[in-house]
């Protein structure tokens, strides 16, 4: 037995050592010295985020046009489902298998760029001459040189008001709130007149601080500084509304989509949503047809940016860069904006009357309202705020809204924890 045990023990030790060594971080060198000025040919993969089958035809046509322009190139479209996209990207990056061209919002692109997984688009493309400045800036990250994504389509939120519920609960649907003060005043009127209908069904978040001009991070981006009396006052105001039963109890567990869901179900009279949300509301609850008033977001509108990034280690870097530039050029962005009710980030697209002139439909109203808001829209949440940070902040805010702690206590605790988490990154 001894003769068997010895090689077995040695084998097990070696295997364990190999496995432990193998589980060390990274999978080789993610960066690449590949040249982006080579021939545009070879096969690349383009990954989108929950855009097919709705826009399959658009992408098929665009890819066919690119392949016609570059006969040696072949583009394979892969679409990933909406849920779990960050996990998919994470697994692709950690196994060094990111698609050559990949649809990424800036908050996904930041950690990938920090680990050299993404190609610096500014090395081959004059970004400022091609895309609107705000969208380009969204892909510039503190501490990193370069631009790590080609801005693609933009979005913002508009307000949707249920006119029928306004009338039923003693409010004038033509005079929907345009400021935060009016929002809380009208929420109080609605709550006093209707037991089972609410106006507000959202929790305040980090974006609300930006809206009120409160700095979330210090100038260096190294410390959260939002725990000011002004920010605490925002939380306390929501807490007062909750205590006065002007918000549904379920709001304490609500996520970002919670108020849109309640609006669709006809349980609340206000929600925010993108320009295309009106179609979903009317499709999922036909009784809302003709009963929805559309207005710009209160205060500053949020700016949502989608982009495409090129994997730094792409074997066909020049083809990937060419395709990223192609799919985000003005013509393609305008065409996609028309069919998807989103807004192009390419310079010159703003002149397209489709985005600025209403066509008499609710969808058209939402589009032109959103387009108008987009001119002053801002990114409300810094991209360094990760899941653990936002979850902890939201949990503390929920405690304050329920009245267990004050707004200041909630923010102090959240800022302290988030600074710990930031330091650990």
């Amino acid at each position, binding site marked *: 037995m001894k003769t068997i045990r010895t090689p077995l023990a040695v084998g097990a030790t070696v295997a364990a050592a190999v496995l432990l060594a193998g589980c060390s971080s990274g999978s080789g060198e993610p960066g690449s010295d590949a040249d982006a000025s080579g021939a545009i040919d070879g096969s690349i993969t383009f990954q989108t985020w929950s855009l097919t089958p709705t826009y399959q035809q658009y992408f098929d046509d665009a890819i066919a046009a690119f392949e016609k322009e570059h006969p040696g190139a072949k583009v394979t479209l892969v679409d990933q489902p909406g849920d779990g996209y960050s996990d998919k990207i994470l697994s692709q990056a*950690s196994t060094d298998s990111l698609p050559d061209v990949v649809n990424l919002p800036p908050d996904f692109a930041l950690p990938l760029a920090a680990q050299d997984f993404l190609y610096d688009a500014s090395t081959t493309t004059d970004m400022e001459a091609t895309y609107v400045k705000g969208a380009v800036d969204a892909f510039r990250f503190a501490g990193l040189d370069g631009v790590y994504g080609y801005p693609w389509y933009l979005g913002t939120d508009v307000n949707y008001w249920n006119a029928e519920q306004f009338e039923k609960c003693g409010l004038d649907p033509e005079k929907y709130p345009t400021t935060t003060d009016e929002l809380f005043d009208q929420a109080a009127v609605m709550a006093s007149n209707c037991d089972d209908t609410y106006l507000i069904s959202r929790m305040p978040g980090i974006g609300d601080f930006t809206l009120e001009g409160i700095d979330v991070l210090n100038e260096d981006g190294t410390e959260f500084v939002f725990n000011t009396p002004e920010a605490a006052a925002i939380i306390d105001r929501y807490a007062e509304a909750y205590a006065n039963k002007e918000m549904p109890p379920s709001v304490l567990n609500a996520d970002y989509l919670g108020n849109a869901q309640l609006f669709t179900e006809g349980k609340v009279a206000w929600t925010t949503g993108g320009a295309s949300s009106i179609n979903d509301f009317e499709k999922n609850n036909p009784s809302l047809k003709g009963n929805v008033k559309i207005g710009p977001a209160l205060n500053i509108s949020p700016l949502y940016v989608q982009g495409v990034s090129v994997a730094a280690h792409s074997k066909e870097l020049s083809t990937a860069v060419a395709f990223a530039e192609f799919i985000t050029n003005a013509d393609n962005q305008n065409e996609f904006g028309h069919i998807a009710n989103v807004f192009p980030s390419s310079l010159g697209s703003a002149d397209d009357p489709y985005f600025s002139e209403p066509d008499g439909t609710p969808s058209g109203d939402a589009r032109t309202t959103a387009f108008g808001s987009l001119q002053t829209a801002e990114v409300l949440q810094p991209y360094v705020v990760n*899941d653990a940070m936002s979850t902890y902040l939201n949990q503390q805010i929920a405690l304050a809204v329920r009245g267990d702690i004050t707004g200041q206590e909630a923010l102090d605790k959240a800022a302290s924890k988030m600074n710990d988490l930031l330091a650990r990154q």
Partner: protein
Amino acid sequence: MSVTGFPAAGQKPAAGRRDPHPETVAVVAPHLARRPRTGGVSTTRWFTPWLLLAPALIWLLVFSIWPSLNTIRMSFTNAKPLGGAERFVGLRNFIDILGDDQVVGALLNSVVFMVVCLPLLTILPLFIALLVEKKLPGIAFFRTAFYTPVIASAVVVALIWTFMLDDRGLVNGLAEALGILKEPLPFLTDRWLIIISAVSLVVWKGLGYYMIIYLAALGNVGRDLHEAAAMDGAGAFRRFLVVTLPAVRGAMLLIAILVCIAALRVFSEVYVMTGGTGGAGGEAMTMVMLIQQYSRGFTGDLGYASALSILMFFVTLVPMLILARINSRSDA
């Protein structure tokens, strides 16, 4: 020669007799064939058993031992999902755990969850098994009815319960309509009501599974034991104590261990019922939810999440050891 026809230990096959395992001999290497035999059955190459064990060993190594070792290793590092400059941080993650109020809250929730679930899921299924083991017309319907929740998806069931327990859901609506409640109970936003709601769901869903284990154990209890006890004057309750309980003690211990492990690892039920938030302030968050919160995303803190997993391992070990101790005392 043994009565089976095989050579007895140390006995050579009789000359001229056919070996009963010619195919075995054929594959034995010459140098092994020359070894003196110690058993009656011809030997095989030394690695044959290892080859047979290899699939299971590889599976164990890849999916159990390696992840466990890797978790221990990562708990001493600042590992991130995307790699980067991973470095050894010593006991920092464990020291941070000691000062983390989220861990204290989540640990308390998980332990309370286990403490409440343990008696309910250890005792209730036994009573149900005693009821449905009787051979009565239509009893199969009740057995099926009790088992049905087991096959339902935890997430789907949790969603249905969420609709029922919502402030405007079936339970609150009914209670208010009957005048039992004036205000809806915050089943999904109050810390302990969330825990109680999730315990109710887990108990309802788990009853059938543990009932089946008890039914199997009860099937091994001889009727003669009950008859003997009855002849000695034991009533139904006395027979339950002196005949049934000792007979199912092994099953009960197994169930208690399974319930402890499952309850400490509870995730889906609380996650779905609180929309992933763990309730207001994350007060109802369980340890597994906390581990998930720290490990997910591009900038997840895998080192800290691994340290939490190690803590969770030892927390799970405690009730196991207590139950094993109780069992050994009972045996003594």
